[in-house]
């Protein structure tokens, strides 16, 4: 028993760094939910691949990315997460270096997000930073334990997120930055900070937001203006949000049918295979299909949070919360943009949007989520 308690000791020989037998304890409920989402994702992309503008078979590429992601997820399940948390400071520094490098040497892709060509690999540091930040925050929060209740420690925690967020904003990738901030806040909250500390910060942020506006890039300003005053927007700026709403709204209760959506098939909605994939789903499958997918996501997240709830230690809880929040923020922000509740920023929808880098991130998050109950099993 005592040895198990010493579980934090890396030198404990009975807990190997890599144990393939971890796979025996995989949670099947979450696995099935992920499988369902992946199936939905590939079938939706299959539809998008048939549409007018695409010459690429997105679903095939996505399928391959999913399989690679699956492999990574399985590896993560087998690795003792304490090792990864222990390595977090190193990863964090490496991440910062990459983020600086991408600003200097990166190749610009559409939407502001940049990538680095390293040999055959296309690294999107802002993508990889998401998971690194989860591990870094876990490292920090488990280190300081309940000192998080003190305001300076909370600020340091925010600073850990803040530095890469600022670098990512420089790229500029507003969407990724916007996702990372709530992830950090939720992790700090679960770690036990004083709620009014967060409330205070939220109030300051609310006051500060208008001050940040002038520093945004012109296209980012346009998107926000368009969202706030759609009637004033020039036709080009308003085009995509409007078409997205038309696409979703015209789907109606039961949808136009698989691969029957005129808005997407005739290419009235740009980016309908990436950030606006949910519009395609909502057009083809209607309210029923869209809500079903949202329900699937909700079940997936709740299952993930239940791992956090039932975790044997703080590290597991925070890791699971972090992994869930990353994906949940993507889902919420992406769909909110799709249905016109938020201004347009490039945020993909996990498992559905085409994008191989993000696909790997999502699958790795799944791996982290699945690892948490596995650890508990091992400790017991």
């Amino acid at each position: 028993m005592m040895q198990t308690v010493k579980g934090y000791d890396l030198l404990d020989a009975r807990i190997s760094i890599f144990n393939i037998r971890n796979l025996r304890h995989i949670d099947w409920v979450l696995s099935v939910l992920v499988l369902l989402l992946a199936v939905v994702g590939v079938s939706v992309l299959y539809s998008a691949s048939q549409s007018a503008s695409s010459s690429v078979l997105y679903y095939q590429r996505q399928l391959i990315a999913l399989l690679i992601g699956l492999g990574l997820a399985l590896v993560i399940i087998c690795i003792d997460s304490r090792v990864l948390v222990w390595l977090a400071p190193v990863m964090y520094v490496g991440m910062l270096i990459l983020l600086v490098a991408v600003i200097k040497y990166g190749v610009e892709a559409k939407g502001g997000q940049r990538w680095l060509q390293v040999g055959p690999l296309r690294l999107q540091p802002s993508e990889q930073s998401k998971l690194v930040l989860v591990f870094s925050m876990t490292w920090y929060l488990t280190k300081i334990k309940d000192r998080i209740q003190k305001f300076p420690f909370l600020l340091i925690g925010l600073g850990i997120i803040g530095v890469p967020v600022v670098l990512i904003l420089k790229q500029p990738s507003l969407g990724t930055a916007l996702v990372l901030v709530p992830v950090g806040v939720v992790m700090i909250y679960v770690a036990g900070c004083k709620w009014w500390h967060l409330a205070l910060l939220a109030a300051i942020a609310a006051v500060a937001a208008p001050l940040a506006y002038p520093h945004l890039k012109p296209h980012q300003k346009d998107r926000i203006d368009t969202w706030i005053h759609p009637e004033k927007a020039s036709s080009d700026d308003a085009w995509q949000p409007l078409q997205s709403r038309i696409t979703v709204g015209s789907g109606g209760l039961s949808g136009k049918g698989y691969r029957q959506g005129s808005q997407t098939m005739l290419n009235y909605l740009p980016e309908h295979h990436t950030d606006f994939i949910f519009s395609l789903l909502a057009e083809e499958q209607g309210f029923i299909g869209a809500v079903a997918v949202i329900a699937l996501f909700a079940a997936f997240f709740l299952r993930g949070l239940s791992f956090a709830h039932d975790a044997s230690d703080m590290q597991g809880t925070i890791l699971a919360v972090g992994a869930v929040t990353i994906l949940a923020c993507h889902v919420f922000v992406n769909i909110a943009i799709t249905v016109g509740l938020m201004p347009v920023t490039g945020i993909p929808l996990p498992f559905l949007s085409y994008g191989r880098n993000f696909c790997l991130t999502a699958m790795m998050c799944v791996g982290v989520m699945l690892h948490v109950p596995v650890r508990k099993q091992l400790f017991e």
Partner: protein
Amino acid sequence: MAQTGQKKRPDGVTARVRFVMIGLVLAMSVLVVRLWDLQVVHWFDYAQMAEYNRLRPERLKAPRGTIYGPDESIVLADNRSACDLVIVPAECRPMEIDAVIEKLDELVGIDEAALRRKIEESKSRPYRQVVAKQDVSRNDLMRVEEFAYALPGVFPVARPQRRYVYGDTAGQILGYLGEVGEDELGKYKLGDLIGRSGLEQVYESAMRGTDGQLVVSVYRTDRRPQLRTDALGRAYVGVDSYGRQLEQEFRVDPEAGGSIFTTLDIGLQARCEEILEDARAIGAIAVLNADTGAVLTLASTPGYDPSVFVTHGRARDREEALVGKLKPMRSRAYQEAYPPASVFKVMLAVAALEEGVIDENTTHYCPGRFRLDGVNQVWRCWKSSGHGNISVVDALAFSCDVFFYNVGLALGVDRINEWAAKFGLGRPTGIDLPHEVSGLIPSRDWWDQVRRPQYPDEPWEWRWYPGKTVNLAIGQGEATTTPLQNAMMMAAVINGGRRPRPFVNMSLGPELSEDFIGDRTIDLVHRGMRKCVDKDRSPPTGTGKAAKIPGMIILGKTGTAQIVSRKQLIKYGKDENNIPYFLRDHAWFVAGVLDREPRIAVSVLVEHGLHGSSAAAPLAKLVIEYFYASRQPPAALQVAQEGGAR
């Protein structure tokens, strides 16, 4: 063991995780509510917007109805397929466009500067079709197709083009087409053609047809689908810029306009126009079927070719037609009224006989002049030596003015008006052609209502006085009638007393008044008018002897309409040829044929022709000769030559 594990987590962690769960469910609920709002509550609006995005309607113009002669073998106006060469600037790379324009010029000859200007003008809408050359010939078209590889963005578009088969023959009757004005939009779209005169105007709604529609589902490419036409002239929508075949959602083919069959005898029409032109006459010839009122001819010179209004590159002809000094677009047959002069005597004779004012034996003495008691004015007979004692038959034959001065006075202005109305003089005939003028037979009422306000300071002008009746009796003074009205009057005289309503559209059919002339009267008038033509030997001769055709019973009556008083002409001396053209008398001749089928009524007017007997009567003879002789179309009747691919 469990406890030890639990201790690793501070208190309240599970509560916080549960709180995150609740937050997550709430966030997802917000999305569901929003989706409900978009997809269920406002579904219809968005569905409509999506359809509006997707569907692009293209109008398919309906071909206009054909105008035929009496049967389908004679086509007066139809549609040919004209081919325009258009260029879509966006389908042609910017650096290619100069080469394309030059190549086009080399192949078919275009106005390069104008095309460049048009392309420049449509720069903001690069997918618009810019017309490079209208109405290209088949040869040009083949050359363009041959070099299609060097002409990206250039393709032919067919459209129906109105064709007036016989050119300017019957141009005024057929009418012309013009673009709709902005006040007429509604049923029409800008650029549509609408009938502006003649049959084209009257039967616009019947001949217009119903436009069709082609609705295609388009990709979002910011470009309009290009409506093209295949070899058969059927419209289709081709591929878009990405080479994607656009889907035809539905198609309503245009419904061609209804055709019209007309009573026009196009051969006779052409011949009449030729007769007028040969005589260098500005005037009109109206020929009616005397028994039905069917219009066989309404010739008027000068004429115009309605094609100039729809054919590209005939702007000068168009201008000439519109503003020509002689008003070639106005049909002198029914859109211009002239003093009927002695032609009026036919009506007066009928009226007097029917009213019992005179009978066969009533004679009046004609000393060559006429006076009214207490009026210091002399009315002359055209024959200054006088006709002596003369009765109605001879008065018609020799056109004695004095006889009819007396008759007119005896009838009085009211009865003259009454009978003029019965013959349809001085009022619209009701012919199915637009802008008909009514002419005028002055009456006491007219004098009171129209003249009095015109001359407020000259009370002597307010009252009808007997001298006016004397003038009216020989169709002078204020009286005016149209050649068509006179032909109609002749028709009534020929057919025994039933005034027909003239008509051009066969489907209207004959419409005749009650028989309002007794047989005895008809007989007397026929005798007088026949003598007018037949008595060509041993003076006195009939005034209409120039219209005599041996072996035919022809009725005739000459007329010579003064436009200015004799006094004004005295200064030009004895020789009529010294009188300026525009002061010369108009020449009338009305004629009818009794012993042939169909019986026709002819009315000839020659403006400033001096004498009905010499200027108009010979023309009537030619008309009648042609009509009853061979019905072969004369050389003048040629199918108009027009450019374009046929």
